[in-house]
């Protein structure tokens, strides 16, 4: 029988995978994907908990997260495009003009 804890563990694992992606990736686009992965991990958790409590709030939260993730991608990609036009690269390490 698959219970709440299994879902939560999956969610935690995916969240960690996303986090590692954020920390390790050098390409901005991949970074964005990694954050999406993290947000989706949260979605899994919300859906599972919502089911567990038999309460719709969690699922509602999940929907909001999906919407926000979408707009985030929209804005993020917009900025990335301008950046790519200016720099010709999406590599993080090229992006260190300001420091100190």
């Amino acid at each position: 029988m698959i219970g709440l804890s299994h879902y939560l563990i999956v969610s935690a694992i995916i969240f960690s995978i996303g986090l590692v992606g954020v920390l390790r990736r050098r390409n901005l686009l991949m970074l964005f994907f990694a954050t999406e992965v993290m947000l989706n991990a949260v979605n899994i958790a919300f859906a599972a908990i919502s089911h567990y409590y038999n309460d719709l709030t969690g699922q509602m939260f999940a929907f909001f997260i999906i919407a926000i993730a979408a707009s985030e991608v929209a804005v993020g990609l917009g900025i990335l495009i301008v950046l790519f036009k200016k720099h010709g690269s999406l590599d993080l390490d090229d992006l260190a003009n300001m420091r100190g």
Partner: protein
Amino acid sequence: MENLVYVALFAPFVGSLFAALFGMSQRQIFVGVIASGLLAVSFISSLLLAINLYTTGNVIHVTMMDWINAGDISIPFGFVIDQISVTMMTVVTLVSTIVHIYAIGYMDHDKAFNRFFSYLSAFVFSMLILVMSDNFAGLFIGWEGVGVCSWLLVGFWYHKPDQTREENPSISPSWAANEAFIMNRIADLGMLVGIFILYWNTGSLQYDVVFAALPNLDDAVLVTAAIALFIGAMGKSAQFPLHTWLTDAMEGPTPVSALIHAATMVTAGVFLVIRSNPLYGMEAVAGVSFFIACLGTFVAFYAASMALVERDLKRIIAYSTLSQLGYMFAAAGLGAYWIALFHLAAHAFFKALLFLGGGNVMHAMHDELDLFKMGELRKKMRGTFIYMTIASIALAGLPPLAGFWSKDAIIETAFNEHTYVLWFMLVLTAGMTAFYSFRQVFLTFFGEDRHTALGFHPHEMYKFVLAAMSPLAVLAIITGWFMGGYKAFIYQIGEGVQYEMSEHTHHLATYLGLIVIFVAVSGIILAYFKYARTGKNAFKRNEEKEQGFFYKLLINQYYVPKIYEEYITKPYAMISEVFWTKVDLKIVDATVDNIAKFFYVSGDKTRAMQTGNLSNYLNWMAVGAVVLLVIAAISAMLV
């Protein structure tokens, strides 16, 4: 009569201010004349006060105004005219008047003539405050005031450069002035402490209140107060070990030496002890008093010994002053306050005369003071010769001149108190005194003419100057004759100052006097044979003898100045330097700067985390989350 008090006190002050008005302008004879005139006024007032006191016996006590009132302390400007202060006033104003007149001639060619009179009159004013004050704080005003005037006057020729100690033992007038001031300050601290002790134990600084309260005090308090006040006296009266400044102070113009460093200021210490006789006469402080007597005797001998070999005319006189101060302290320490005071007065007359005579010689010899470069001056400077001989006889203590009576009384006192060692030392010193004072007379006025070869053409001083000196000469002769009268006068104060020889001593008085005379005469004869003769017996300098241990010891003043320089002055400068460069800059200040630097450097270090690389930033966030967890866990465990 009260007005006379103020006249006596403020006349010199007015003179000083008047002279100061012209302080920066050309030499004006009238400045000197007016200053002298005002001093004469002061002298006459003092004399009138003395006569009044003598005839009526009424002690005058005036309070001019409040000075310092704070907490429970109340110090007025108050003045008391009793037998002690009036004696001092008369002596001081008389000698000052003469010195002022003398200075008109002596300072004739000096550009700073007017300034000199301003200082000199200011000194007299301070001295009068010192002796007239009715409280210790007022005494201290005068005490410090004379110190400053002494500083100004010793350093009067401030433009002279510093020399090495070998060239000039006093280095320079400005150096000597500073030395005098600083050494006096050391003693002043002692005096201040004495004042503090008296204040906190008696609640006042007025002489009458303090002295009235003395019998109720603890012995320990009395002893410390007596010691502290005596330390003050030691400085001003140049007692060992604070004596070196006095000989160096001879760098000042000779009238200054005569007035300040012989007749008046240096006796302030003796005056203090006499003034505080209710304290020093107490049973509880007998030990201190005896110490004073011993120290006085020691200084008398010590100074006389240095004078034996000295070649500098003024320094010899300075040593003799030191020696005579020792006599005075011996007397005061043994309880014979009135004898000390009498010797103080007599000494003031003959020593001032001696100094002024010395000034004449110096003037004639163009500031050359080396006795070995003089000789046979009596023909060219008859008046001066006579004066100086009189003064020297008085100093040597031969009857019937002033010095004999007073000094003999002191020696007799030592005998009377059964302190035979002191007595013996004092007698011995009397002989030495006679020897060196006549050594000086003979080397200056007798013997071979050594100065002409060196290009000196001495001439006698102005007539008016010699005339002005005559009262001193007369007094140097006759003062002693009035000893009995003075005794009656001063006995009016009360038991404190009364001192009578015992029956036994009285009996032996004649013999004791004869011993002193004998010793003194032997000293003079010895000096005559050694220095006064001419021809093949003439005095010759013996270089070999000057290498001897004792000679070197004496000529170097027992190496005391050297010791002070090596073990006090130099280490002080060195420690100061270390404190500044090593401690203050390298430790105290550097600590502060390093704290600031620490922040700055750690800022630079921390800044390195801000690499500009987004990936690093994201890692920082993850690290931060972990760190937060750790912090939270730790605080959860601790709280």
